[in-house]
């Protein structure tokens, strides 16, 4: 940075760090800046963000990054070790492993993204509504979530996929169905602490309708925890998706999916162990990145001294 730009940014920095903010906007910007500092000061979280962006980029640019088509079978070249032609070798049908892993990123991110988009809003709505309305609505909804939560999420997803039939979209539905109760419970717990606050009472006295209270006042307060939880659960969604793929219940062949690749690699484990190593590392990387980012988000949004 040149001396001039540093001097130019100094007044901004002192505005952001001033002890007594003079406007709502300044106070809001200050808390945002401090939260940003916390995130930036957490190298692991930054690493998580970078990795996630990298994976996203890879998935997006897959056709340009992959060296071969992930579907092209060249049976004469099956089960080859890593080489210059095939960077990670070939699988049992002669397909290039590297390209399949690159395209597999698309599958995984597709699943994770869709599940997050479904589960987040639905869980938040249901949980906040249940928590705010109380009474039999809350009891009923919480009983339902209890039933769902009494199963480990993988088994639940397994059950749903078995019932619906193995396919990529059914896997997404199944995982979403097994993940929403956790978010709903969290939203309800947060709502319980908020619903007796004075400002909620004030808005109610002013005549706000119940849906308005829930949507405009209660849900935004639940948002930080829910966002953190959804981010963290994306890590386990990636693992569950891979697990379903491993059991043959996720994306069906020939779609490249990391869990399914591990399943077929299992048969050739002794001679061609590298077939199993790479897809697993890919799953690990994505899951780890989500966990790191989620942890960093949590520290950023709920700082503890």
């Amino acid at each position: 940075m040149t001396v001039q730009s540093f001097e130019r940014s100094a007044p901004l920095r002192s505005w952001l760090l001033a002890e007594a903010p003079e406007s709502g906007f300044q106070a809001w910007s200050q808390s945002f800046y401090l939260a940003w500092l916390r995130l930036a000061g957490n190298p692991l979280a930054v690493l998580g963000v970078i990795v996630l962006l990298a994976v996203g980029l890879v998935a997006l640019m897959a056709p340009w990054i992959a060296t071969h088509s992930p579907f092209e079978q060249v049976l004469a070249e099956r089960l080859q070790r890593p080489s210059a032609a095939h960077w990670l070798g070939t699988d049992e049908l002669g397909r290039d492993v590297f390209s399949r892993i690159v395209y597999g990123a698309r599958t995984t991110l597709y699943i994770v993204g869709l599940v997050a988009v479904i589960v987040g809003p639905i869980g938040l709505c249901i949980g906040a509504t249940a928590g705010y309305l109380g009474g039999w609505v809350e009891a009923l909804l919480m009983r339902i979530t209890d039933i769902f939560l009494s199963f480990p999420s993988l088994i639940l997803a397994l059950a749903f996929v078995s019932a619906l039939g193995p396919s990529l979209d059914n896997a997404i539905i199944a995982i979403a169905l097994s993940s929403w109760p956790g978010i709903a419970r969290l939203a309800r717990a947060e709502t319980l602490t908020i619903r007796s606050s004075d400002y909620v009472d004030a808005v109610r006295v002013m005549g706000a309708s119940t849906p308005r209270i829930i949507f405009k006042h209660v849900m935004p307060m639940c948002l930080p925890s829910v966002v953190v939880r959804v981010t963290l659960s994306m890590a386990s969604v990636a693992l569950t998706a891979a697990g379903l793929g491993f059991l043959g219940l996720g994306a069906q062949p020939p779609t490249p999916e990391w869990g399914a690749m591990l399943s077929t690699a299992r048969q050739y484990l002794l001679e061609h162990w590298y077939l199993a190593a790479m897809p697993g590392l890919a799953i690990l990387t994505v899951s780890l990145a989500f966990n790191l980012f989620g942890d960093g988000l949590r520290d950023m949004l709920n700082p503890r001294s």
Partner: protein
Amino acid sequence: MTPNSPILTVEDLRVGFPTPRGTVEAVRGISFAIGRNKVGIVGESGSGKSMTGRAILKLLPGGATSAVKSMKLGDTDLAELSENEMLGIRGKRISMILQDPKYSLNPVMRVGHQIAEAFRVHHRASKAEAEERALEMLAAVRIREPRRVFSLYPHEVSGGMGQRIMIAMMLIPEPELIIADEPTSALDVTVRLQVLAILDDLVSTRGIGLMFISHDLNLVSSFCDEVLIMYAGRIVERCPAAELHQAKHPYTRGLLASLPRLEDGHKRLRVLERDPSWRDEPIPAEA
């Protein structure tokens, strides 16, 4: 040690905290001495009074740094002791009474055992002996039915009783100095005087020095022998409690003036007006 020599002398104590905005100095070079008397340290929140107490015992919260020219307990310079050596000081020679017994007592341990533990740390004694001593201490702090109270858990006792248990726990190893950090601030007003009376009694009969930290100027001036007023990390006034109304520093005079009195004819309460010069200007009557 002769009866009149000071038990604790502190010279130029400084305590600092790291913050995103730079190091904040909570205590900025204070010096004082405590003998076999009761010295009160009065200040508002943020004046650094609690940090002073913790710094003496080297129990500052993580991240805080302290520096001092010398901190002598009798002939031992506390500043030079290692953490291991401090274990022999804490409890045995200096104790500290904390503010709120709701939080300062271990919730899953019976109160009697907590007191007995304080004894066994510094004296070789069997479990039974330590229990006997604990029961004696419970009686000394005027708790009726010591045997019944011994087996209670902290959530089963009232505030006043909890604080008396704390006093018993801190006095049982027979220290030379006690630091009382706002010992009555969490108690009902009616209970305060009782607890103070017990503390006073025990401290005088055993010849223990007392450092009484509080924000309550009235309380300190009636209870202690000497008063030190802290403001923004420095001691701005020191005088015997009896001569407090002759205080010279404008901060002290402001505090005294803002205390509401029944006999006063004023229609409005006087509000203390802060002068920024009090922070850094040299203190007029500095010893």
